[in-house]
């Protein structure tokens, strides 16, 4: 409850200062009252900003009654004065425990209690991860859409939702965004986010110390998010416990979201019944982000920190870090911190200097030969075969993939691509690239294979 608008509040303080100057004298006034501001009046409590802890102490102990009396002369509804240090926010003084103050405080604290923070503190969710700040690109739009669908109707649409993809591509972000969205829509929903390791540890503790309540903790939630499921592999008893939790939740239509770095079928030592259950709902992979997505991520991050970073610099970073968004953001943070410290613009030269140091080990230039060799090696065929005129299916597909990679990763021209693979006609290259582009969207196996080769190219 702010009484009066800003100008009348300022006038009040100015009038009060005029009177105070007369009673404390010039020197005292200059030393203590110059530069003070009246910030606001809330429920009869006036907040005055002073320069530092010494002024605060002086005001509280020596000038408080003078200030209060002078203010009360002009505004009879003023009950007390609080002093805060400039630059710091007004905070609730815990030392003030008079019943009147408690009442005022309770009254004031009613409003902010609506904030969604209340419940999720214990849920393990991080509020920074929302759908709004997730950058969608062609590599993750399917996962994004599925997660949004789940957030709207938890437990009904895709259950379980299994997200997988490489390190730092946004699995955790999406999974947590679902949790945050569900809580935002329905603050009473119970959402629990855990790392699979936490699950393992708690399970072990429950066995060792014969703790009760382990299974109920997990079985009472509305949405259970388990991150990095691959760590549960090989731990059979834990898998069994998780299996029962899974069944209990699934049967009562509670949503499960699971993330992993591999698809269920590629996690060794995952028991068959777990695997089939994971594949029951929806299994989606998150691919490496393309150049445009990486730029968009950097743009968003930079504007979140309120700094404008030039296009050149953004493109330089996006070009140099391709496989991991966490690393990408790290490089940007490093650049921004450096620029802040030096008080300079985060320009291309600075970025180049900093990156040069952290990224020296990464080959910055791929050659067409590397791409072709890698592809051939991945499919266990000979490079000579890939370049030969043979048209057996087991050679044609790898050849087309190689062409696609030459186009997407190295941006080679179509005639050049044809040349690299011993074709005369560049329309073959055009056709192949288009075919794989389409296949990536439709064919799971092709998508997997392309992603794996890409990953190897940049390791």
């Amino acid at each position: 409850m702010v009484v009066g608008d800003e100008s009348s509040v300022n006038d009040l303080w100015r009038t009060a200062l005029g009177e105070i100057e007369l009673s404390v004298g010039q020197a005292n006034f200059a030393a203590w009252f110059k530069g003070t501001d009246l910030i606001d009046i809330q429920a009869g409590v006036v907040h005055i900003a002073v320069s530092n802890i010494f002024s605060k102490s002086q005001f509280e102990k020596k000038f408080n009654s003078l200030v209060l009396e002078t203010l009360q002369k002009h505004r009879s509804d003023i009950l007390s004065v609080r002093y805060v240090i400039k630059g710091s926010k007004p905070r609730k003084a815990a030392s003030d425990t008079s019943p009147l103050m408690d009442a005022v405080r309770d009254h004031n604290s009613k409003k902010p209690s609506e904030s969604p923070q209340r419940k999720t503190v214990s849920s393990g969710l991080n509020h920074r991860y929302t759908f709004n700040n997730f950058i969608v690109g062609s590599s993750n739009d399917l996962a994004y859409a599925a997660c949004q669908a789940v957030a709207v109707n938890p437990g009904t649409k895709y259950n379980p939702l299994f997200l997988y993809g490489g390190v730092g591509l946004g699995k955790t972000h999406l999974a947590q965004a679902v949790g945050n969205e569900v809580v935002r829509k329905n603050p009473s929903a119970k959402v629990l986010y855990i790392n699979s390791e936490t699950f393992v540890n708690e399970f072990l503790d429950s066995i060792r110390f014969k703790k009760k309540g382990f299974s109920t903790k997990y079985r009472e939630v509305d949405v259970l998010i388990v991150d990095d499921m691959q760590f549960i592999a090989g731990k059979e008893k834990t898998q069994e416990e998780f299996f029962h939790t899974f069944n209990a939740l699934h049967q009562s239509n509670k949503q499960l979201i699971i993330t992993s770095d591999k698809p269920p079928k590629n996690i060794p030592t995952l028991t068959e019944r777990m695997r089939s259950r994971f594949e029951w709902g929806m299994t989606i992979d998150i691919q490496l982000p393309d150049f445009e997505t990486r730029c968009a991520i950097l743009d968003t991050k930079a504007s979140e920190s309120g700094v404008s970073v030039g296009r050149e610099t953004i493109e330089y970073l996006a070009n140099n870090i391709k496989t991991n968004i966490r690393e990408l953001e790290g490089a940007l943070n490093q650049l921004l911190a450096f620029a802040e410290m030096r008080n300079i613009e985060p320009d291309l030269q600075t970025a180049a200097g900093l990156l040069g140091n952290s990224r020296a080990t990464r080959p910055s230039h791929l050659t067409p030969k590397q791409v072709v060799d890698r592809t051939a090696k991945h499919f266990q065929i000979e490079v000579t075969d890939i370049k030969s005129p043979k048209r057996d299916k087991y050679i044609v597909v790898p050849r087309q993939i190689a062409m696609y990679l030459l186009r997407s990763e190295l941006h080679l021209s179509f005639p050049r691509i044809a040349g690299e693979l011993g074709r005369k006609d560049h329309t073959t290259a055009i056709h192949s690239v288009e075919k794989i582009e389409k296949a990536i969207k439709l064919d799971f196996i092709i998508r997997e294979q392309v992603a794996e080769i890409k990953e190897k190219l940049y390791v």
Partner: protein
Amino acid sequence: MRVTVTQENLHKALSVVSRVAGSKASLPVLGNILLKTENNRLVLAATNLEIAITQNIGAKVISEGSITIPARLLSDFIANLPKTNIDLRVEGVKLHIEANSYSSVINGLASDEFPSLPAIESLKKLTVDTSDFKRAISQTILCASNDDTRPVLTGVLCHCFEGALYMAATDGYRLAERKVVKTELEIHALVPASTLSEVARVIPEDCDSIEMTFDDDQVLYRIGDIELTSRLIEGKFPDYRQLIPNETEIHANLDRSDFVRITKIASLFAKESGGSVTISADSVKKILSIHSVASQLGENTSEANAEVDQDGTVSLNSRYLIDALGCFSDASIQFGFSGKLAPCVITDNKSNSEYKHIVMPLRS
């Protein structure tokens, strides 16, 4: 008020507190020292509204009371007295001082004009070893900026992470980070560098440990009978840990005194170029060489034996390098860098290095 103290005690206490009392302060009472009796001891206090120092000394208290006295005159007068007992007597706003055959009357101000000093109530308390803390101060404050337009850089960040208290300072060109003491507390305080240099100055020789208490706005250092309270700097310190490279490409391990010598020699020829010297590491000849050019005077190349794992060149400000090397006491140190633009890291070549000094190269 009437007390008797020894000249030695009073002189020592005045030299601790009087430096804080400002001569150019807008408020006359800030140029004064507060004298008051408390629990049969005499308390002396001074403040400049950024920091406040109080010290209590043993005294024979005949009657209680208090007064403030101009700092300069009082400490100069007491310093010149012989080692004897001194009688202090307050009458109105005058202080009568008598010692053997010397007697004077100094006009003061009433003690209720003296600012009330902030009290601190906080559980964020930790104790550090005096000599180690003194060293940590000298290793960090030289990197703090004295540019008042960027107040956050004029402070030393005292913060906790990974179970320890760290102190860090940077002026934008160099950076020092020092691990101070293990603690489970959560502290994040930006202490003015001037406060820490005052702390280092007042530490008496016979004091083994210092107790620090932090709250959101202030910090208190309790050093034996001395209490030093300071405001903290408001604002956000740069996320400096992002700037410390995890690893550098080129490492040169060498004798510290050799390194200091060649840097000092090179700096003689670097005055024209603002201190710029070029350091080259040669992995074949196993040397680190420093080259500097002064177009008027001539030029210089100095070399020192070093274990070098890769070749490389970097340009630095020799003054920063000399400062940095002065922060180490080890016989051998490691100088790490990666290319002409990335930060250089100077450490003591131990696996659990407690102190890191980062210097930015000059763009050349």
